[in-house]
């Protein structure tokens, strides 16, 4: 007997090496779930389709593999939208399969019909409506290929119910043939030669690294390159884990909440080497005063990222690893010139050291009221170097980027481009599925946590020992901070009037909850939580009106920071 569409789908997933799916059933995917019942693919039932996509996304960010999601048509499919947009903005490879009403009913406003191709078009790298079961295997093959290659991204496959039931011979294509999609670029040697010339003549170089370095698994090459040139390295939020924070060349975060010394270094540099970054407005501040003295080399796999927001003196389109390896090889053979450059740039490194010494990252500690930054430092102290940290969005996210030291790539999962509250918990869930034996911690705010708190149930059901640190300020803190700084402290709708008992909430789900209200309770609580098996909520009642500083006010230049007192 010929296999059905849903059997073919599962077989294709296996051929792609998929062993885990995140999803949620419904009428339009019931056939797939029926076949899944006999399959050895592990399916994780989240409590919301948005969380299924974030979980697959966290799984992918942590492991480098493509994440896979199944959701039903209509509301199930529309619930994936925020997840897709989040993954799209951060270039995360996902394949999201949505059920669709039977082909003869498409366009009739049938029960649970939504035009997912139309809805998802601007938030996916590509999408497909499969109208004939004979196209299914080829479509799945292409979907994975597109999701994983080039600049990665989510791909959606909309699969009508009748196509899941129809039968055909199963042949999995060996090759993908797409006339319009050729994502592999070799590093252009002439461009590399030009870059080397610019690097060797720079006096004040800065390497500005973006999320692409994580996606391309180029952390080792990046480190080699930076050490070779002795160039200071600043990272975006997305690249925090691409370069070890404690490294002497590391300047930490740049941009709106960047360190004083990173923003000063960029502003004063004469050569900015952008590696897999896209000059987001949160990074550049006012464009006119961004790196005004610098020549810019921009290395990226995606040509559209280059010259989108800033002028670029030397574009290099290519895979970061290839390009960095090319640069390293050329620099290695440049002999004495390189050591002369390293010598010439020593005063620049001294200048930066002076900025670091005069304006280090800091906050005002307190012996009584818990400072959120202190909690973050303590979590770092008490966890393993390979612990995976996710965040939600808000002040706690920025403090994590500022005060948590990262050692290894793919250990920091955060929604950078879209800034999605509710991302961190399901993303941590997905990462824990990928790495059952590593420590996985979601650093959260009380607001964001409530956007996907239902996933506690999933954690408990699958015995996923994710630890959740809620930095509870009883505010939508980041918005409150803006209201304090730019709107005369008019706290419109940012005070969470109803205090939630997060300990009881954890217990209601069968998880463990703990609370700390004073500084000296922080360390013992984290220790205890880390020793407790299964999911734990650690609630920290933190100082309520703490601000994230430094801060470059919106539309100001990077050197116009409001500093911590």
């Amino acid at each position, binding site marked *: 007997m010929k296999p059905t569409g849903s059997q073919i789908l599962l077989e294709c997933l296996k051929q792609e090496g998929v062993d885990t799916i995140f999803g949620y059933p419904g009428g339009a995917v019931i056939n797939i779930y029926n076949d899944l019942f006999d399959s050895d693919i592990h399916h994780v039932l989240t409590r919301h389709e948005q969380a299924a996509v974030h979980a697959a996304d966290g799984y992918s960010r942590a492991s480098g593999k493509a994440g896979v999601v199944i959701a039903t048509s209509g509301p199930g499919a529309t619930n994936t939208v925020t997840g897709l947009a989040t993954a799209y903005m951060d270039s995360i490879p996902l394949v999201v399969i949505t059920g669709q009403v039977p082909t003869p009913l498409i366009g009739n406003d049938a029960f649970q019909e939504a035009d997912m191709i*139309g809805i998802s*078009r601007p938030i996916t790298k590509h999408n497909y409506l499969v109208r004939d079961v004979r196209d299914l295997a080829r479509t799945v093959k292409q979907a994975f290929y597109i999701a994983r290659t080039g600049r990665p991204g989510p791909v959606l496959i909309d699969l009508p119910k009748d196509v899941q039931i129809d039968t055909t011979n199963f042949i999995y294509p060996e090759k993908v043939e797409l006339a*319009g*999609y050729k994502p592999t670029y070799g590093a252009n040697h002439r461009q590399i030669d030009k870059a080397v010339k610019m690097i060797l003549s720079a006096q004040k170089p800065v390497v500005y690294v973006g999320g692409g370095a994580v996606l391309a698994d180029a952390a080792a090459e990046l480190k080699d390159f930076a050490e070779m040139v002795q160039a200071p390295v600043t990272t975006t939020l997305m690249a925090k884990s691409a370069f070890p924070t404690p490294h002497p060349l590391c300047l930490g975060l740049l941009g709106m909440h960047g360190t004083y010394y990173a923003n000063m270094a960029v502003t004063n540099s004469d050569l900015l080497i952008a590696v897999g970054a896209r000059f987001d407005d949160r990074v550049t501040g006012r464009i006119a005063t961004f790196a005004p003295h610098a020549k810019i080399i921009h290395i990226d796999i995606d*040509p*559209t990222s280059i*010259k989108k927001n800033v002028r670029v003196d030397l574009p290099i389109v290519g895979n970061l690893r290839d390009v960095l390896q090319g640069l390293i090889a050329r620099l290695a053979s440049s002999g004495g010139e390189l050591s002369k450059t390293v010598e010439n740039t020593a005063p620049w490194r001294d200048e930066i050291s002076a900025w670091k010494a005069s304006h280090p990252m800091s906050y005002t500690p307190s012996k009584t009221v818990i400072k959120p930054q202190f909690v973050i430092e303590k979590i770092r102290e008490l966890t393993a170097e390979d612990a995976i940290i996710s965040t939600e969005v808000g002040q706690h996210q920025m403090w994590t980027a500022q005060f948590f030291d990262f050692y290894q790539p793919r250990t920091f999962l955060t929604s950078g481009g879209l800034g999605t509250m509710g991302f961190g918990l399901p993303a941590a869930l997905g990462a824990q599925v990928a790495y059952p034996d590593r420590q996985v911690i979601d650093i959260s705010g009380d607001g964001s946590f409530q956007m996907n708190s239902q996933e506690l149930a999933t954690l408990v059901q699958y015995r996923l020992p994710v630890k959740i640190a809620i930095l509870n300020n009883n505010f939508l803190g980041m918005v409150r901070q803006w209201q304090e700084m730019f709107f005369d402290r008019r706290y419109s709708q940012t005070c969470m009037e109803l205090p939630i008992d997060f300990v009881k909430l954890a217990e209601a789900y069968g998880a463990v909850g703990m609370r700390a209200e004073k500084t000296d309770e922080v360390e013992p609580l984290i220790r205890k939580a880390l020793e407790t098996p299964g999911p734990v909520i650690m609630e920290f009642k933190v100082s309520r009106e703490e601000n994230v500083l430094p801060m470059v006010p919106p539309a100001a230049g990077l050197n116009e920071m409001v500093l911590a007192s």
Partner: protein
Amino acid sequence: MKHTISVLVENEFGVLARVSGLFSGRGFNIESLSVAPTLDPSISRMTIVTRGDDQVLEQVTKQLNKLIDTIKVIDFTGYDFVERELALVKVNAEDETRAEVLRIVDIFRGKVVDVTPKSYTIEITGAPAKVNAILDLLQPMGIKELVRSGPVVIGRGPKGWKSS
């Protein structure tokens, strides 16, 4: 500045929406768009007229190229090309103006493709400027309806798009 761009795309489901959605989503301007299959029915060719400075146009071409279904993007700006547009014009033609309308059509080498006692329907092809010129002359007679195809373009010389 005005640019005329040819986009060769896989003739896949929804490809027109991808291209037009790209323009609206990124705030690019679209002045006209025409599309039809090529000799190879699996490939369609779109001709898009758009406006923008160099930086915008660089983004337009790159973003079009980035679409999975896009096979080739050709910006004809700075190249030698032939540009033609078709217009169908229904114009008032009552006793005193009938002869004048015909004279104008003749000068522009247009064709009358439908006749009634009160109107002519005229077919005119040419560069958009030529179409504009005849419309200016016909305007005083009273244009009842106008359909323009938007321009299509092709490069001059012996080479086809595959080798250009």
